[in-house]
């Protein structure tokens, strides 16, 4: 029985590390959730088992999403049936599509290329194949 200083020093070090982790993630998350005012809205709808997209100008796309490099986009994420999760791993875009809710995520791609889009919440039979692609194009205008 009995404590000694070694244990208190150990606990103090652990708590100091945790405070660092907590404060740092507070700062980063605050920055991440700060959506730019000029971000263009893209409506994303998940349903078993594909993604569909609607741009601000009314253009609709299924499975493949085209965006322009250097612009900011905010996704409005819906679901038509069960829970899905809209995920572009290379751009850390990740937010659940919950039926009855509208969720938001944003990104501003700065490299042109093609990136995978996937579903990251189990949604049934073809969950594994609920994939799409994101095409980031150079802005020619």
């Amino acid at each position, binding site marked *: 029985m*009995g404590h000694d200083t070694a*244990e208190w020093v150990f606990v103090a070090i652990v*708590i100091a590390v945790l405070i660092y982790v907590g404060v740092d993630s507070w700062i980063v998350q605050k920055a991440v959730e700060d959506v730019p005012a000029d971000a263009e809205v893209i409506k994303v709808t998940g349903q078993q088992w594909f993604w569909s997209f609607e741009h601000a100008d009314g253009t609709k796309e299924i499975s493949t999403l085209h965006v322009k490099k250097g612009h900011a986009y905010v996704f409005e994420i819906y679901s038509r*049936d069960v829970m899905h*999760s809209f*995920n572009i791993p290379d751009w850390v875009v990740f937010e659940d599509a919950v039926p009855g809710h509208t969720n938001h995520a944003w990104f501003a791609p700065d490299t042109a290329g093609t990136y995978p889009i996937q579903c990251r919440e189990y949604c*049934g039979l*073809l969950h594994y194949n609920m994939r799409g692609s994101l095409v980031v194009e150079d802005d020619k205008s």
Partner: protein
Amino acid sequence: MVLELQKPRPVWQIMFSTHHTDVGYLYTITGLTFLFMAGVLAMIIRTHLFFPGQGVLISDSATFNRIFTVHGLTMLFLFALPVANGIGNILVPIMVRYKDMAYPKLNAIAFWMNPVGGALLWLGFADTTWVSYAPYSIIRAPGPAADMFIFGMKILGISSILSSINFVVTILKCKHPDLPLRRVPLFAWSMLTVSLMTIVAMPTYAAALIMMLTDRLGISGFFNPFAGGDPIAYLHLFWFTFHPEVYIFLLPAIGMMYEIIPRFSRKPLYSQASGVFAFVMLGIIGFASWGHHMYSTGMDFTTKVVFMIGTLAAVPASGMHVFNFLATMWGGRIKFAAPMKFAVGGIALFFSAGAGGVLNSAMPLDFISHGTYWVVGHMHLFLTGTIGFGFVAMVYYMFPYITGRMYSEKWANVHFIGMFWGTVQVFFTQHLLGLEGMPRRIYDYPPEFTSWTQLNQIASVGAWILGASFAVFLASLIYYSAKGKPANMDDPWGLGGKYYYPVAAKNPHGGHSGY
């Protein structure tokens, strides 16, 4: 004594007994049986994922979804809980110096609900995943399977509440009056903590299951957005039960390590008080962190911060356990017999899993790891790495006392090396797969993602090593319980010194307790 010990006793005497040791055997054997059944499912999953491209081992995704669902449910509710209850049944009454559990018949009923619940889960073979998120489980999950899942979980939940009530009453009310609560051994403290947590947490899920059932029947719409309900409500109810449940799975394993480590270090425990404090802290703080499973469901910033703080607050208490173990071993004359090897291996993996957990709880990093193989690796490091190692250590520790025979140290060593190697290779690799963005619960992945293919193949090879080590375990349990050398019951490992021994486990109906 009504029942005198016969050697060997006929099996029905154990099956129809209400004696705590006999019920403890039944729990432990049932739990280990389900461990091997669910382990076979894990081997099928990993072998299937070795090859990208459909239909190599499992020809359709529905079967795959059912297999990983039942693997998870079985490991959690039919292996982890019963084995903890079994060891608890054997040791807790001895530790509090009472003749039996407080309610022996309730104890036997609580056990016999397990095979029934297990049969429903296995015969149903649901595809809802163990979390069975609404609305999938309500509007899409196919027929009798999902309903059998609901009833099976219901029965297992009631069983776990009944046995928890029994443990709480046994420890608090039937404890020997000369034994102050603070001096009750730490394993019994861990059972007390998790039993109180179960009584607080489990009714919430029991209610959610009934609501899910009526939703499925179409007579209510609690979680069904197309009937005015909200799936997020289900997630809150579910994780309010099942984040504390994580600690309910974990703490008995930590308690078992507290039994083993001081004895094999041949030193007294560093601090009983800090062990008790850390158990009680985890028992309370475990209820403050359920929302970290739901960061990405559209949770607002403030709520996320609150749950992040609640999650991080559990880390110092876990760290106190690790410190307590290390300080106990420090300067001891350690004997690395099988129970000690597994206990120390478990502490090392507990530390790794906890460090990964800190990263998960940090909000921005959670958006990278959540729902990927990172999480699969993380929680398996707890479940296999800590709970599995703790339980296996305890099985080796109890083996001579229960069977009267000694296991083979050589084969135990083979098991240990295979299990440690396998655990590290599978689950550390799965962390990397998560960082590569591979979602969990997928039947197949595109072959053109070469990094996914390579990492999956590394993980699958690790899983085969892990599986092979458990085949060694099973064979040596069976062989040495019949053919092993008779154990020296006063000191099976030749540790010397004055330590207590759970010898009453061998002769439950008479003899001294050893405490």
